[in-house]
């Protein structure tokens, strides 16, 4: 490693009521700079890591690629733990959907107006919506609580945050796969024929999962630092379920339809429905059937832009969050 006289900010002096900085231009010890120290495996310095984008990205990508093994194992253990400490195990993955089906069947027998058959049975509509809602909320919660869940690991190890993110995504994908299996049973029970674009419907579900992941990661640092967000998140799922067409389809010109028009998630959910059981489905007001794919691609584009940004945010935030745990 070559030593060059690169200045590291070094010395402070106390003067007056506030401690002011004095920059040393000839520090007593010289060190290689973050850019020039190519031989170093890792460099931790006081400057913003993002000021050295090449080395930051090189390290981030290296961590991303190197953390797959750990991510796979964390994912496997997380699933095992989930069922180890639960008497009813996997039942809980299906419980909300099963309960919804029972309630809606009772409601339909009571001939409630909003539960009349459309293109699909109301049970199918509601369970499908519930699965989409659960997928989004679970993905968001998994990533939002990333730092808290792995606190023991992060405060004692240089565990790459990438491995923890990937483990969370894998866990959510596993949950989604289970739900898709449940959905197949629901379709069979209520004789619903999927459309030929059903693979795109699954793509839609994946986009919803990615939206939840992205939002969760963007919130993760703030959630780790302040518990206020936890309180907000206690209310958020209910608000989300209420403002998104999950349980019953929007009646045209109804006040709810107007609310849904302003909720971008409503379009993504509806596009996923349209692509899964397709023709005859009444799309969101103002959106044609052919526009549904554009909506999903638009949502995917949002994820492509924001997910790496959220990843970088979490990577930058990690040491500060660990530090706050040590106070």
């Amino acid at each position, binding site marked *: 490693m070559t030593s060059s006289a690169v200045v590291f900010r070094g010395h402070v002096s106390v003067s007056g009521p506030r401690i002011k900085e004095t920059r040393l231009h000839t520090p007593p010890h010289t060190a290689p700079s973050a850019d020039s120290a190519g031989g170093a495996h890792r460099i*931790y310095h*006081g400057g913003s890591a993002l000021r050295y984008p090449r080395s930051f990205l090189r390290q981030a990508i290296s961590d991303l690629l190197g953390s797959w093994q750990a991510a796979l194992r964390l994912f496997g253990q997380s699933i095992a733990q989930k069922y180890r400490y639960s008497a009813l195990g996997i039942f809980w993955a299906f419980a909300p959907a099963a309960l919804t089906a029972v309630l809606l069947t009772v409601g339909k027998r009571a001939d409630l107006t909003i539960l009349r058959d459309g293109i699909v049975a109301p049970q199918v509509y509601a369970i499908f919506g519930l699965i989409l809602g659960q997928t989004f909320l679970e993905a968001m919660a998994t990533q939002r609580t990333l730092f808290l869940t792995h606190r023991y690991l992060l405060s004692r190890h240089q565990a790459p945050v990438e491995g923890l993110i990937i483990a969370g995504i894998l866990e959510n994908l596993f949950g989604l796969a289970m739900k898709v299996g449940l959905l197949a049973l629901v379709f069979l029970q209520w004789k619903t024929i999927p459309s030929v674009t059903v693979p795109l419907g699954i793509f839609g579900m994946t986009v919803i999962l990615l939206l939840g992941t992205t939002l969760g990661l963007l919130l993760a640092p703030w959630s780790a630092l302040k518990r206020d967000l936890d309180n907000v998140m206690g209310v958020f799922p209910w608000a989300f379920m209420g403002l998104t067409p999950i349980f019953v389809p929007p009646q045209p010109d109804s006040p709810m339809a107007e609310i849904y028009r302003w909720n971008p998630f409503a379009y993504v959910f509806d596009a996923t429905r349209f692509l899964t059981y397709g023709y005859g489905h009444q799309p969101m007001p103002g959106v044609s059937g052919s526009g549904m794919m554009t909506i999903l691609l638009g949502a995917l584009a949002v994820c492509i832009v924001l997910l790496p940004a959220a990843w970088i945010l979490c990577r930058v935030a990690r040491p500060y969050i660990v530090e706050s745990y040590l106070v």
Partner: protein
Amino acid sequence: MKLLEIYNLSKRYCREPKLAYKYAARDILRETACKDQNDFLRPGEFWALRDIHLQVAPGEVVGVIGHNGAGKSTLINVAAGILRPTIGAVFVNTPRVVVMDYQGGLSPVQTGRENIINQFSLHGMDGRRIAEEMESVIAYSDLGSFIDAPVGTYSLGMKVRLAFSIYSHLRPDLFLVDEALNGGDLKFRMKFQRFLNDYISKGGAILLASHDLFTIQSLCHRCILMDYGQIKAEGTPEEIISRYAELAGERESAEWKEMNAPVLSPTAPTVEDDPVAEGISEETGGEIDEASGSKQAETGAEAVLNLVTFDSVEITGPDGGDLTPSGPVDIRVVVTSREDVPSVLWGIEIGTGGLFPIASLAGGYGPPEYSLRKGRNEFRCRIERLPLLPGKHQAAMAFTTRESAIILGFKGYQDAPITFEIKPVTDRAINMALFRKNLVHIPVEWKARID
């Protein structure tokens, strides 16, 4: 090439959780906006590390010692990349670095086996190698069937055994150790010690933060002493441990002064109770020393006559040299007496900085018998072997009447302290005694084992 290079490293911390969270949020936003951290202290912050320069080469074991809060753990955490420096830089020139601590990053809800897999995965081992090493780790830890129980159900000793078994199989180039080399039962500790000795002999490097004198002395090639986030001294383990003990003594003295402990004074009969004293009192006007008398009044101790004043006190080694542990001590005192006093005692009390009396000596019971004459008087004595450990100590001196021990003059402790220093020596046994917070060191003639 060094394995670890630390330059101009400073790290600030905030003590108040509310402010810490606020600063963390600001710092995250600042860094995301590509701005460097401000290098001044904000309200509630302090420098946990300040201008640290340190390098660790392959095959080298560097010890870090210091009192609680000196910055040892912070240094390990920054070197490990767990915390970010505020100023300066840390270069880690190997991918094979392992942080070792008591908890070992073990998850309490996962089984021992799962924890082994996790730790190995986090250190880049692939599935095949993990499978190869698994049985060896379990055997080393001696956990048997407990390996499939959640770690939260383990005793502390079992956790330590599991963590150390994992460490011993990771074979890194550099261990960063935070107070973690002891634990488990004796058999396991000896096994792990053998592993470390073998690791070092094969070129492994360790940065070891510890309070444990034995570990530091037995493993380290070099040592640094940290105090309030700064490197105070660097040298051989023996030198630095000795310096640490000295620093600890200074801190204790400072703390004692802050506490403003009550004055320790020899008890003596009151002036009114003693006819000899009364006589002297009448002749001299019976003045009470205001300096010591007022303090004693506060603490309830007895009055001191202002008959004898101390002009000088010297406590030195032979020929005015340094004092050494269990070495000879010469004491010389010059006093001025207002009156002739036929029969007196010269009392010396030796104590710690915190005024804990260790020994009380009295000269004049004879021979020789002492007396004071009006004017200047000089007295000397020698302690052949003063069994005190290195550090700063205190003495108090008094001249009293022989029969009733009325205090004619007193010097020492609070208002007029007499301090003397036993100089540190690089002796392992003495260092050990210092770390055990012993007060005295008793020289022993050790005999060979009788077979």
